[in-house]
């Protein structure tokens, strides 16, 4: 996620949308980790999402 932050910082205002879909057994823990990393791009909560079931590996 740190590498994504660099991409976001460098290209975010040049038309690149950077995002993460969080898939974590414990969303509270994922939220804590996300805040700890201080990412400024969007992080979707996707643990139970249909999208995750369709597209995420695992």
């Amino acid at each position, binding site marked *: *996620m740190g590498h*994504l932050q660099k*991409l976001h910082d460098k290209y975010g205002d040049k*038309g*690149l*949308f*950077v*995002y*993460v*879909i*969080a*898939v*974590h*057994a*414990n*969303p509270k*823990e*994922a*939220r804590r*980790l*996300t*805040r700890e*990393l201080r990412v400024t791009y*969007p*992080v*979707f*909560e*996707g*643990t*139970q*999402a*249909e*999208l*995750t*079931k*369709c*597209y*995420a*590996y*695992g």
Partner: protein
Amino acid sequence: MDRTVLFLLIVLAAASHSVHCSRDQSTAPAAREVEISSRMAGESFPSFSFLDTEGRPLSWTAAEATLEAEGKSTMPSALIVHVFQPDCGACREEAKALEALSRESGGVAIVGLAHRGEKGAAETFKQEIGVSYPLGIATGTDWARTWGRGDPTYIVNRESRLVFEQTGFEAKDAQLWRDVVTDLAAGRAAQVTGSGRKSLKVGEELPTIELASLVDGRPLRLSADSGELVFRTGDGREQRYRASIGFFSRY
């Protein structure tokens, strides 16, 4: 931070479509597949030898198609191997379905192999889900690096040939497993070589992503519109982009 990136989605100004799982998503013209893990049906499934959560040997000997588990040696009609990560939500759901299958299917052997995390995490996984089939610890091994990518589930026949591989999980997949192991138990060649559900391709349409923000719960939406990517937030803000890069992440 123990981070696992599951999947990379790069979209260049694509059209959008609603999210639905399908076994046939071959909508991209002459697309190049970027599937993470794809093996050929019929490929030889390799031997492995690990310890289970109780410290006992858990091994598969390909040459003899023999499983040693929980102190017993068997030659199952089908072997299902779920290579998983203990902190993976989808893996947990899949393990529940495999546990149900283990209680109804004779002749099929099911094992789980943790390819990330330490023994304690696998033990917690086993206890929380109520898994009764053996779980081995494959973390850090070459076998896991080669065969664990994408948290796959494999079904292997009694010749130690791979007849089915699946990454990801939907509840209806359990019936697919039943069909395959039933075929194998009856000595029929299993026809299924994978769900195909995760076969993302360059040029494939971007699914509209409409989910809450993990951080503050606000609704977020990413979709494609007239060759641009449109990101909308719950407070009505809208921004347009030319390209996106996104990851499913387990942290």
